[in-house]
Structure formats: structure tokens, C-alpha cells
């Protein structure tokens, strides 16, 4: 009888209704398998699909000197087949079920995902488990993907992306964040099949992975599938060595990069706290407040009156060990560079003495919230939130906490966070058209 009452109570609880409206993570929970793999399950009975993603601790930060570019290379290599599946067969099988798949690499992790109808859940587990330890790496695949990566590097080199890469190179001395995700061309050229196999063995085991399952599925079934397909896989083992602390920046660094943009662009970047740390959400809010409205502070100061710039943007780049707060402005042809810098940095200085107004703060909060909520409409979007939280902050509920802190943020909190934007610690980069080419600082970006 007691068991029956218990079952009825559980049933009623289940019938009670969907997760509390507004909650980011809903009923999500994390289960750790015996081999160290972490599985995050986030069911949503109103979803129309299930998203299964595997997040590997195999980002560029784990590359060794001289072997850069592998993380991004593996974004492609993981689709080149195994003993069981031909090259490209992963995508074809997912598509045959009506699903879509993709992958991307960052400095901290690579993510491989598929969104499928719920009844194809087991296929996702089969495919991911297969390539987690059974990938077939061949010289032919390596050579082919190496060429494609070179093409991709050229295509994706927008001025702002190149600028951000350069800022990271300037802002860090030794940390792997200073390198490009694409790696150095000479490293890629010299990469051997053995190098790739070593990287694969070290970074792609189940103990290096987090799996997110989000959408319309039954939790117990998913857990059972995880135990069946992932738990028997042998862990990669080993421990990551802690990276030595990077010397803090104590003086402004400046550089000029010619010939990469049709108009001048000025970028400024500061090393910032880790995503999990205090002030990260405040700085993220500050970037929105400064740039993402037609009368945002920097927009007014640089684009509207006077119209020194064509556009201004800013963000808090999100990484595990540290982040970068950056601003970028495309400069009008007739504008004076010194005046642009003066107004740009003048506005930041004003923050320290003059708290932001309540109205502009509330507007920035609403902008962030609305964007977050709309990003969570799909199973893919929710998986993205859970997975990045886990990989960057060690907490799949990280987005929920960020939102709470953003909501609670006061003008005083923003002023405190703004102290990270110290002129003595900033990195300033000018991107100039080729006819304005000037001698640049050394490739490391040191003045």
C-alpha cells in the first residue's frame, strides 16, 4: 500500500505540470557514470525533439606547443568514420531520421551535437559512443581536413575575429588562450597522424566528456542508454596539469595591424575574470549597457554626436580560465584617431565616478534576459546553455545563476566591475586599411 501511495504521489507530481515557467534548467540533473562520464538530462515533455550533445575537454588550451590546431581539426576529423561507420555516415544517418548535426571547437572544448526525433535517441548514443573511442584516423583524412581547415581560416577571417585573436595574443603571455583556434600554419603542416592519435586518446575519452540530453525523452531510458553505450568505454585517464599562472598585465600594450580592413577599426581588450567568478556577469551586463542600444553610452559618444564612428560593439568573451572584455569601433574616414580613443576611454573612465542610471541598467538587463529566453526556445538552445555552463563554469545551472546575478546587479556592482577596465591593463589594437600601413609592434603585441 505504501508503495502504491508513493507511486501515486510520483505520478501526481509528474502530472502536475511542466517545469516552472522561466526556469532555465527546469528538471535537469547530472549523473556521473562509473567511467567518469557526466550525463546531464533535461527532459521537456513539450519539446518536439531531443538534442544529444557530447562536450569534450579537448579545446585548444589542451594543445601542446608545436601541435596547435588539433582541437579545431578534430571538429572535422570526428566525422571521418570508424570501423563501424563510413566517413560521413554519421551525418547521413542522423539526417535519415530527420535530424540535423554539427560540431564546433573553442579554446576550452569541442562540441558534437545532433537534434533528432525522440524515437531516434538510441541512434545518437550509438553514433557518439562509436566515435568516442572507435574513430578511424587515416593519413588521407588528415591531409584532406588539413586543406579544408586552411580554406576555412581564410573564409572566416573577418576583421573583428582577427582583431580578437590579436588582442588575446597581446593580453596573455604564456597561456594557450593567446593562440589562434586554427593553430599556427606551420604546426598544422607538420602535424603527423601519430600526433593526432595521441591527442585523440588523451582528450576524447568518456572521462573527458559531458553528454547533454535535452528535449522530449524519458530520463530513465536515456540513463539506461548511457550506461549501455558509454559506461563500458575505457576512460582516457591521466590528469591535466595545471597551467602555470600567466603574468598579469601591468602596462598598456598597443599594436597596429595593417591591411585587414577597408576602414580603421580600434579594439580594446582587458583580461577579465573567469566565467564562474564574481564580476563576470556584471561585465557582460556592462558590455550590453555600453553598446547595445541606439542611445547606449558608447553609441552616443562615438556614433551619434559627434559621428566619429560608423558602429561600436562590445562583449565579454566567455572562457574557462579567464575572459576578455572587449570593445570595437569602426572609425569614420574623416575622424581623428586620438579623439576616438579619448572619447572611448573617457566614457569608461566616467563609469568609475558616475554610477549608471537605473533606467539604462534596467534596459540592459531586459535586453539580456529577452535574448536568453529566446535562445532557450529550442532543445538545441537549451542544450547549448547547459553544456557551456558545465564546460566553462563546472555547473550546468550556470546560466540560471548568471541571470540571478544580472537581475540583482546594482549601479554600484557595475562600478566595481568597471575597475577591471584599468587603463594600465588594457590592450589597444588598431586595424588599418593597407594604405595606412604603419610599422607594427612585434607579433606578440608588446609595445
Amino acid at each position: 500500500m505504501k508503495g502504491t501511495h508513493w507511486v501515486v504521489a510520483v505520478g501526481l507530481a509528474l502530472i502536475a505540470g511542466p517545469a516552472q515557467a522561466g526556469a532555465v534548467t527546469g528538471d535537469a540533473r547530472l549523473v556521473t557514470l562509473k567511467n567518469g562520464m557526466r550525463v546531464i538530462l533535461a527532459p521537456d515533455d513539450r519539446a518536439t525533439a531531443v538534442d544529444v550533445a557530447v562536450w569534450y575537454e579537448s579545446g585548444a588550451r589542451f594543445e601542446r606547443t608545436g601541435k596547435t590546431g588539433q582541437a579545431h581539426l578534430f571538429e572535422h576529423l570526428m566525422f571521418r568514420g570508424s570501423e563501424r561507420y563510413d566517413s560521413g555516415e554519421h551525418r547521413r544517418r542522423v539526417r535519415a531520421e530527420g535530424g540535423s548535426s554539427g560540431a564546433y571547437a573553442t579554446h576550452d572544448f569541442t562540441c558534437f551535437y545532433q537534434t533528432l526525433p525522440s524515437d531516434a535517441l538510441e541512434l545518437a548514443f550509438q553514433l557518439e559512443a562509436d566515435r568516442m573511442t572507435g574513430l578511424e584516423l587515416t593519413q588521407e583524412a588528415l591531409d584532406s581536413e588539413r586543406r579544408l581547415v586552411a580554406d576555412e581560416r581564410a573564409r572566416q577571417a573577418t576583421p573583428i575575429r582577427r582583431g580578437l585573436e590579436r588582442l588575446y595574443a597581446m593580453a596573455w603571455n604564456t597561456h594557450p588562450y593567446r593562440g589562434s583556434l586554427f593553430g599556427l600554419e606551420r604546426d598544422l603542416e607538420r602535424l603527423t597522424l601519430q600526433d593526432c592519435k595521441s591527442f585523440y586518446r588523451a582528450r576524447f575519452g568518456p572521462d573527458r566528456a559531458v553528454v547533454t540530453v535535452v528535449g522530449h525523452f524519458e530520463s530513465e531510458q536515456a540513463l539506461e542508454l548511457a550506461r549501455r553505450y558509454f559506461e563500458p568505454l575505457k576512460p582516457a585517464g591521466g590528469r591535466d596539469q595545471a597551467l602555470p599562472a600567466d603574468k598579469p598585465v601591468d602596462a598598456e600594450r598597443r599594436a597596429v595591424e595593417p591591411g585587414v580592413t577597408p576602414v580603421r577599426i580600434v579594439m580594446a581588450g582587458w583580461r577579465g575574470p573567469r566565467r564562474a567568478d564574481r564580476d563576470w556577469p556584471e561585465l557582460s551586463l556592462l558590455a550590453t549597457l555600453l553598446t547595445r542600444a541606439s542611445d547606449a553610452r558608447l553609441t552616443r559618444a562615438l556614433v551619434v554626436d559627434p559621428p566619429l564612428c560608423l558602429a561600436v560593439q562590445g562583449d565579454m568573451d566567455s572562457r574557462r580560465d579567464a575572459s576578455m572584455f572587449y570593445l570595437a569601433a569602426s572609425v569614420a574616414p574623416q575622424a581623428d584617431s586620438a579623439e576616438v580613443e579619448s572619447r572611448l576611454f573617457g566614457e569608461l573612465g566616467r563609469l568609475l565616478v558616475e554610477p549608471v542610471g537605473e533606467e539604462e541598467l534596467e534596459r540592459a538587463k531586459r535586453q539580456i534576459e529577452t535574448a536568453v529566453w529566446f535562445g532557450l526556445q529550442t532543445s538545441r538552445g537549451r542544450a547549448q546553455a547547459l553544456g557551456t555552463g558545465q564546460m566553462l563554469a563546472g555547473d550546468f545551472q550556470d546560466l540560471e545563476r548568471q541571470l540571478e546575478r544580472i537581475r540583482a546587479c546594482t549601479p554600484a556592482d557595475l562600478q566595481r566591475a568597471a575597475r577591471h577596465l584599468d587603463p594600465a591593463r588594457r590592450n589597444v589594437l588598431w586595424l588599418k586599411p593597407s594604405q595606412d600601413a604603419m610599422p607594427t609592434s612585434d607579433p606578440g603585441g608588446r609595445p
Partner: protein
Amino acid sequence: MSPRARTVRAFVAFALLLLAPRSFAAPPVVRTFDNGLRVAVWSDPRLPVLQIQVLVPAGSTQEKPRERGAARITAALLTLGTTSRDAAQFTTEVERLGGTVAASASLEYATLSGSFRAADLELAMELMADATIRPLFGDDEIANALADALQTVARSRQILGLVADEHVSARVFPGHPYGVPELGTLESVAGLGREQVQGFHRECYRPDRALLAIAGNVDAERVFALAEEHFGDWKGRARATPIPAPGGPAGPGIRLVDVPGATRAEIRLGLIAPGRNAPDALALDVANDLLGIGPASRLNAGTSGRTLRAYSTLALHREAGMLVLATAADNDSVPGMIDRMRGELRRFVAEPPSEGEVAASRRTLGRSFPIDNEGLISQVGQWLSAAFHGFSDDFADRHPERIQAVTVEDVRAVAARWFDADHAELVVVGAASAFEPALARMGKVEVVPLAAPAVQTAPSPAMDLSPPGVEALERGKALAARALAAHGGAARLRGIKDSDVASEVVLYGRGQTITGTQREQRREPWQLRIESTFRHVVAIQALNGRQAWSAAGAQADSILDADSLGVAEMRAVFLGDPLHVLLACTETGTRLAWRGEDEIGVRPTDVVEMVTAGEQRRVLFFDRETHHLVAMEDNQGSPLAGPALRRLFGEYRSQQGILWPHFEERLLNGERTLTLKTTQVRFNTGLAGAVFERPGQVTGGHRRR
């Protein structure tokens, strides 16, 4: 598994049955308002957000010939201010809510989309209604939008894939709205102004065929009440230019768009297809997937193991559709690629897909549909598109099952009916010198330069510089004679020896106006005095035979003499009043040619080009009913060649037997510059010559032009 775990598992499964997932995109609650607006609402409590979308059948297919490009520009202007908020205020209010609003237009309709927090429902609804119904069309905003549109068209000419897409549409749909580029052409966009853009909004943005969709964490009844409050007063019936069924491609033909020096070419094979509502539509979706979408499709998989890297697209509009096979290739591969693409089309018919292939495609398409449309924005968009095409409200929910009902026989039948490789229109955009001979072996090749628009839009009658035929000349002469008669007759007009016209003047510019007065006195021959007063500052321009002078200032006491060019300009002004223009029609050596029909305001007019013996060209607009001269225009034959100055005449009244306009509006490139409201007109008052004589002292030199 323990008994407890088994019980939990069983109960979870049972509970999930009870909570059976809502069928994908459960149909909304739909109501039709008295003004014809259809409103659909979905309540979804999962996230505290709200999506509002308005669809208006105001796409490029509704553009009149002289409005090409207006649909996109009008849509872009919706978010740039309303009659109650200027552009900055509108943007600020949306941003203050943390929301976003965007508008766009395509071939068949325009949409305005807003994303907001659910808590801001009321304000959001008000903003969306204001933007849809009452856009501001500010001077600066129109000017910027037109400039942006011109830049967009110019830039699109550099993207060879877009060029290829435009040309293949033009070939598949010759002379049909579906074949006209949505962006318009440089010529057509350069000819757009406030009149066309505002006119397009006035005529096409009406509720009777519009759709409003709202989804999010909202209460449906509250939404309907707010929709009624904010959209209920929206009135009128939209322009509903019927889109005829296309006549079919002119070809098959080969159009080669020459890009000298290009090393790669864009290739398109275009075929006409049925419309979205046709019985063949779903089977065609499946056939297209098998032909050129999926990784295992015929075009992708290639023949003999070679990968074509080609793909196909299927666009199904209301009246017809188009299937396009597309790829890009290095120059030396172009002929081979064309052969392989045509070969795959033929093979699809000769060796049609198997039952297994069709089943696999059905499965993919049916099962991917809910995934591709999982979010609110997609679901709302799906309903709007379905409703526009006349499908039922549960279209999205039932679409997967309808796809599953497509049989292998259906697919084979549509392929046999529509995949006609021998009649496909071929477009290649690349270096003609590299492969024109090879293409010539395939058929007749039409080579056009890259700068040539895909569709030659006929010039507006006012811009037509082509040599007129005999009929046009006769008709022009007859129309001018009728106009002369309507205005009092040649004899009476010639009897006017002097005129004295006083007017109230308003100058317009950058959102501001200045009012003043003007007096225009004429005396035959070649004597003219125009005196204008604005804010106590008097300006005089005068012509006295072979001399001309001007004066300005509070006392009009600083006088400048005109040089010969200045005199010529004043003589042209002398001849520029309606009376002299009409009399010029009777002079020997004046050529009058009928150029077509147009509308001035809502009045149909005959357009007559007048070229005098002195090669002065002017375009006259005669009301088709009254024969009054309702407008005249000076232009260079193309909006790209120079400005167009148009003068509109109205409020005609008889004065001493002469019909004279008591209102005039002047437009420069479609933008109003001034209006004149006549307060007094007198003829033959015996004006003295002294009126036109240059007063005493000269300061400065010749008048600057």
C-alpha cells in the same frame, strides 16, 4: 532492475502517455476581426517571452511597374518611426523593453516581427500596431532607405550567385512578376521617391488580407482584446493585383552573363513548377530532396562516383514555382557540369527513385519538419505562411503525415511531368570567352553584360526617349489640341498679353517649412518679374528682353546683372508657365509624342512628350477625362542621368475664359520642394514696362549662376 525502479519506470511511461506531447504546433485559436484581419494566438507558458508577427500581402509581386523595389524599402521604413514617435523614439521604446523589431519583404508578402518579454504584451502590441499602420516616412529616413537600397542593388551585382539567381528567375518567368528581382534594378530604385513608397504602403498595408500572429506566455483572451484595441481601427482594402498564372519559359534558352576575367562560373538550370497549393506540391518536395538536397541526393552523389557538389532548390509560390539546379565550377569544368546536371535530370525520369529511396526521403522530410520548427518564431512563421497560401490552421501539425502519404508513383509522375531537362533554362554567369563556343554547341546563346538587369523594366512614359512612331506623334498632337481647347482655346490664350499672379508660397526641406508670398508678373514679349518675400526678406528675379537681373535683401537694394546664361535661364522660366507651355504645343517645329499612361495622384493621365524647335524637352500630363494639364516634368530620361523636376497643377478655375491652376506643387526627384496657392490672377491689366526695368545702381558684378 529493482521492483521500485520498475514501478517508477512504468509510472513515468504511463504519466508521459497522459501528458502525451502536444502534437507539434498545436493549432492556434484564430479569429477574424470585422476589418478582415485574421488573428491567431498560441499560449505557451514555458518561457516568459512573446512573439508578435504581422504579415501583409505587400511583396514585390504587388508592385506596379514604376514601383519596382518599393516593397522592400517600404518594409524597411516601418521600424523607422511612426506618426506618434520619431525613428529614435521608436527604437528607444523597443530597446527599453529589451525587445527587437524587424521588418522585411519578399516576393509575396511583407512581415513585421517583434520579440518581447511576455510581461510587456500591451506595450508590444501597441508598438507593432503603430509601426504597421502609421509609419512616419520621415524625409531623412526615406532618403537613407533609398540610398541603402541603391547600394544593395549595386552590391548584388558583384555577387555572381545572386546574379545567376535573378537571371534564371527572369528566364523561367518572362514578363511575369515572379521573374522580376525583389530588389528592383538600379534604374527602378533610382526612380523611387516618397510618392511611390508611401503610396505602396497606403494601398497595400490594409487589414482585409493581413494576418496577425501572437505566441508566448500569454492569455489568449487578453491578446484578442489588445489586438482589437490596437488593430481594430485599421481600415480599408488592400491592393490585390491578381498574379496571373505564368505563361511558361520563353526558351529553352541559354543566357550567358559575361564577367570578363572570371575564373569560375555560376551555373543555373531553371524549370517551371506548380504552385504551393497544387496537388503535385508535396510529391515535388520529395522529388527535390532526392534530386539535390540530401547528402545522398542524385546531384550530390554524382555519377560514376564523382561528386558534383551541385544542389537543387524548389520555390513554390502561390501561382507557380521554380525548380533550380545550381552549382559553381571552374571555367574548364563548365560544359561538363552542365551536361552532368542535365544528365541527372534525365536520369531521374528514366531511372526514377525506388520505393526505398522515396520512403527514406519521406521519413527525413516528415520527421525533420517539427525539429526545424521547434521555436515560437518558427511556429508562428509557419502558420503565417500556411495561412497566406490558404492552408488550414492545423497545416503544420498535419504536414508530416501528409508527406508520409506521398507514394513512389506520385514522385515518378511529378518527375515525368516537371523534370524536363530539354526545356530547362540555362544561365551561366562567368567569362564568356572561356566557354561561349562550348555553350553555342548546346543551343542559341544570348550574351549579356554583367551590368544588364535580369529584367528590362520598361522606362516610365515620362522617361521614354525612344524615337516615337507615327501613331504616337499623331496621338500626341491630338491630345495637346484637346488640352488647349479645354484651357480656353489657342486664340484666347494668345490674347493674353500680360499676367499678374499672386500666391502664398511654402518651401519644404529637412522636415521644416517656410511660408511666404510670391508675385509673378509677365508681359509679352520676354518680360518677367518674380518677387518673393520670406520673413521680410525680398528677392526679385527679372527678365527684360535681352537683359536679366536680380536683387535681394531687406530692401532688395543689392542688384546683380545676369550673364547670357542667366538670361537664357530666365527666358526658359518665362516660357514655363502653363499658358506658354500650352501655346508652345501649337508652334511650328514642336514635336508632340504620346508616351503612354500614368497616374497623377489617383487620376489617370495621358503622357505627352513635347520637344520644341529649340530642342527644349518637357513631359506633359493631361487628365484623361478633363484634358487639363495636371502636371509637367523636366527630366534627363533616366533617374540615374539627372534630377527630375515635376510640377503638379490643381484647383483649376476659369479666369477671363482661361482655365488657370490655383494650386501648384513642385517635386524634385519625388520630394516636395514648394507649393504655391494662388490668391489672385489677372490678365491683360496693362502692366507697364517699367515694372521689369532694372533699378538704378549696380553692386558686385555679374550674377553668379
